[in-house]
């Protein structure tokens, strides 16, 4: 009996312990005596004051950097150890080499307190419950708005105030040299609460990449045996038709490169010519197109309409080419495929790139920043306006739907449940047992022209179009400030020494040495001699160990190797350096750079540039995030549903179903623009726009 009682007692204790597992002390009060460093007002001084950074004392720094992926944190999480050139072995659980190097460089101990697989947004939610007291530095991807918001709530240190005191000298120098970036990261209260990740600015970002041989094979081969088995049903009626026919003043003569003028001789519409064909197969469509080019342009070869520095094609001519491709699967693939896909995006999560074609339908604005979440443009009065609800965008969706109905767009691109990398599938399986073939995508050009992907891909100029009221070459995309970065916690820095060392860590990546470390990894990965880029500038050069190890462990993907094994290129506050990208760019990639840089083609920038046309702000990119006040955040949350994901789904339903009229009963397709607009207004469009206009005015000092 005694034994039974003892056993029962033990069992009960066990149950009790198990039932209370997970109970922890809830620290919500933060640390007494910690107050925000900044007290409002812009603290950024125009000149760098005396540098007060002092690294003599050894200090411990806790970092919480969440990326939703344990491979991307500052801790080494690979299963296999990594042996560095000096014999140091890095194993799982250790800091990645970049961060170990940082410890030595800044005389500190870095402790990674990140929940390794936690998403950054979840990390922010969790951190806010403890006043961000659990770490000195908090960072992650797509949390810039949160960092600004909690900064204004006094949870993060005002970096401007620290700069005024003599800390963060390199960051201050960087902001002084880049006032657009300072403006973009300044909160509504005039303070700066985070250091952003900045992709190299004022450079082309996404561009048009195509299979070169398909164009020459289709357009330059006399007497080619085009396919006749596919009879295309046409839906697209053309953009340059009727009153908008391209001729004379309306795009009759365009200038792809200084000193090069291309003139379209007639007012013919290739779309109307193709639509008028009785039989629309590969042969008839292509022969009509070739004849059209010969009748209208003075090219040595018809393919020059698309390829090289004399390219002068418009969106209708691009669609006409896509039709020819769609109707010639056997001819183009030497009989290896019965279906080819003219246009695609890299993944379904990149599907908004299709919407970027809007630029070429009369300059309709879509994303005036790199992010798909950025759905704003700046009007001629300097106010932000919402892009997705415009009549121009509605018309673009109808055009895309007509392209979709003709089979010109790879339809899996719209399906978010499909996680396949279509670029790898449609460009990278030519020699495989089950090849799939795609033609054109709008994507980052270095990776799109990689030899390992497909040796046939090249960069072309964008379609020429009437953009901002003027016929010109323009890509409404550019390298941008990302909504990623990190901030210094007020409550997490318990002593002045910790605070000052946290500043030193943030500042370090804006110094020359720190920038090299973050962009290229630790010094032992680099050659002594620099790499000279195609722009004539010297950059740190990766050594053999780096390229060979990268090949062995990361299949040659340098950015993945640097992020997941070395710990550099982590999107905390630093500016990405183009020299890294140059070193994995193919010769065709360099040719693409050269083509774009030597052309008249311009792209979106923060400064706005000097794009000709009606709206002086057309070229100006909007900030990556807006600094909203509590009241504004409430207004957006309570009065609008504009940021919910079904907004985009509704737009892609138009693309899916509008042209063919085959929408399921449960899917409503707006019959006209007024219905389309009404859908946005029901979501609180007016309140949403008013809120962001107000926030933007404050950010730009106009309120």
């Amino acid at each position, binding site marked *: 009996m005694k034994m039974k009682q003892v056993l029962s007692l033990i069992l009960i204790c066990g149950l009790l312990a*198990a*039932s209370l597992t997970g109970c922890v002390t809830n620290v919500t009060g933060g640390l007494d005596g910690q107050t925000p460093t900044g007290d409002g007002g812009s603290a950024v001084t125009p000149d760098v004051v005396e540098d007060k950074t002092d690294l003599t004392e050894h200090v411990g720094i806790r970092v919480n950097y969440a990326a939703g992926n344990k491979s991307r944190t500052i801790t080494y999480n690979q299963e296999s150890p990594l042996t560095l050139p000096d014999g140091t072995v890095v194993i799982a659980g250790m800091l990645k080499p970049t961060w170990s190097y940082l410890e030595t460089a800044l005389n500190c101990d870095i402790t990674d307190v990140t929940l390794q697989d936690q998403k950054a947004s979840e990390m922010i939610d969790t951190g806010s419950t403890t006043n961000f007291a659990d770490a000195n530095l908090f960072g992650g991807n797509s949390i810039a708005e949160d960092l600004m918001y909690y900064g204004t709530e006094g949870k993060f240190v005002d970096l401007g105030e620290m700069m005024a005191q003599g800390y963060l000298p390199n960051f201050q120098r960087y902001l002084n040299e880049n006032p657009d970036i300072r403006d973009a990261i300044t909160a509504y209260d005039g303070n700066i609460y985070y250091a952003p990740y900045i992709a190299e600015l004022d450079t082309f970002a996404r561009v048009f990449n195509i299979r070169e041989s398909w164009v020459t094979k289709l357009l330059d081969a006399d007497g080619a045996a085009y396919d006749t088995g596919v009879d295309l049903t046409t839906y697209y009626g053309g953009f340059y038709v009727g009153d908008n026919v391209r001729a004379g003043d309306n795009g009759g003569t365009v200038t792809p490169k200084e000193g090069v003028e291309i003139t379209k001789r007639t007012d013919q519409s290739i779309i109307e010519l193709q639509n008028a064909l009785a039989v629309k197969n590969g042969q008839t469509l292509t022969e009509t197109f070739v004849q059209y080019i010969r009748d209208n342009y003075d090219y040595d070869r018809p393919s020059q309409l698309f390829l090289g520095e004399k390219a002068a094609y418009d969106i209708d001519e691009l669609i006409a080419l896509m039709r020819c491709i769609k109707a010639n699967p056997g001819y183009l693939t030497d009989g290896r495929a019965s279906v080819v896909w003219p246009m695609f995006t890299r993944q379904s999560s990149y599907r908004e790139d299709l919407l970027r074609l809007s630029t070429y339908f009369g300059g309709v604005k879509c994303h005036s920043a790199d992010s798909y979440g950025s759905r704003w443009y700046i009007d001629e009065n300097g106010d932000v306006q919402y892009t997705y609800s415009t009549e121009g965008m509605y018309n673009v969706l109808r055009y895309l739907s007509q392209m979709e109905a003709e089979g010109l767009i790879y339809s899996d691109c719209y399906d*978010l*449940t499909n996680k396949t990398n279509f670029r790898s599938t449609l460009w990278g399986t030519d020699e495989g047992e089950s090849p799939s073939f795609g033609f054109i995508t709008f994507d980052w050009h270095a990776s799109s022209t990689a030899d390992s992907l497909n040796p046939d891909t090249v960069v072309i100029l964008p379609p020429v179009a009437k953009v901002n009221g003027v016929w010109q070459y323009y890509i409404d995309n550019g390298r941008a400030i990302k909504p990623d970065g990190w901030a210094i916690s007020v409550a997490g820095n318990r002593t002045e020494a910790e605070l000052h060392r946290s500043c030193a860590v943030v500042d370090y990546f804006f110094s020359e040495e720190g920038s090299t470390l973050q962009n290229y990894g630790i010094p032992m990965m680099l050659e002594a001699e620099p790499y000279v880029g195609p722009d004539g500038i010297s950059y740190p050069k990766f050594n053999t160990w780096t390229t060979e190890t990268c090949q062995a462990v990361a299949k040659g993907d340098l950015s993945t190797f640097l992020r997941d094994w070395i710990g550099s290129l982590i999107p905390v506050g630093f500016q990405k350096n183009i020299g890294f990208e140059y070193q994995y760019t193919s010769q065709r990639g360099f040719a693409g750079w050269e083509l774009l840089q030597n052309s008249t083609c311009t792209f979106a920038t923060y400064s706005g540039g000097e794009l000709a046309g009606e709206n002086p702000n057309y070229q100006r990119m909007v900030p990556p995030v807006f600094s909203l006040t509590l009241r504004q955040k409430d207004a957006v949350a309570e009065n609008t549903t504009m940021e*919910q994901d079904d907004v985009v789904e509704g737009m892609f339903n138009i693309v899916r179903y509008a042209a063919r009229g085959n929408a399921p009963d449960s899917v409503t397709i707006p019959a006209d623009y007024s219905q389309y607009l009404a859908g946005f207004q029901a979501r*609180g469009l007016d309140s949403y726009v008013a809120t962001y206009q107000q926030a933007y005015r404050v950010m730009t000092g106009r309120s």
Partner: protein
Amino acid sequence: MGSEIKMREPRCKGLIGALLKDWRLYLLLLPLVLWFAVWAYKPMGGLLIAFKRFDSSLGVWSSEFRGIQNFINLVSGVNKEQFWQAFRNTFIINAYGLAFGFPVPIILAILFSEIGNSFVRKFTQTATYLPHFLSEVTITSIAIMLVYSGVHSTGILASLFQELGLLEPGVSMLAKPNYFRPLYIAVGIWKESGYNSIVYFAAIMGISPTLYEAMKVDGANKLQELRYVTFPGMAPTLIIMIIMRVGHMLSIGYERVLLMYNSNVYVTADVLSTFEQRIGILSANYGVGASVSLFNSLIAFALVIGANTISRSISDTSLW
């Protein structure tokens, strides 16, 4: 043997006396009481979020009190269409579950009870229980692979539907709102019907064999045995299970919905828990999210009370 066992009288009367008398039982009960106190009752304080403009840095108590504004926003504000759509979907999916999912375990249990060979019965039962022990992610992923239909890959079931002319080639069933509910119910039946049959099987096993023998003597066939012995014998269990099921009319295993749905099928797939997750967590609108949760709980509570009352009035079986 003839000696009389003399029970010791408790020294104290009343509650303390009862506690002292059966202290071992109460000690065994203690962990469960604590578990409920810590994990079920203490978190209820968080329901206050439904009446606050919740700021996680201030905590529940210090956040600004807003009265019923979150509820007003929910039922008549900008989210009202989505809320009522989720409300409707939750009911419809549960009704489908009740109509199609509830009978399957009962039928399975009856079939199991009719299998004479114990090896075959055990094997069959184990095979049907197995999906329950696989994670929701695994089961749902398998289901998605079976019905996926894209340009370059088509699952077996999707191919079959295409052959039968029920599905357009290249069209993903997962992107069509009409297919979501049947898929959801089918996956649920596949995963849980075997395991859920255990309780009914136990109820059938509890029916006295003499009743069946008597029926046989009276010349009853199998259907008559089912009607006059099996179902009446299972009735208490069936009623309890129905009451519990009705109580869950407004709660759905959101994990499967989250794994299966996408914004294109919200119209039929979005349920209260996923709506709550989107608006409360993803949109950081905690107050409205919590109000969805509280609303959900109150309706479910009323449903359980109602079902129990009805059951008690028309039969002898009820939860309390």
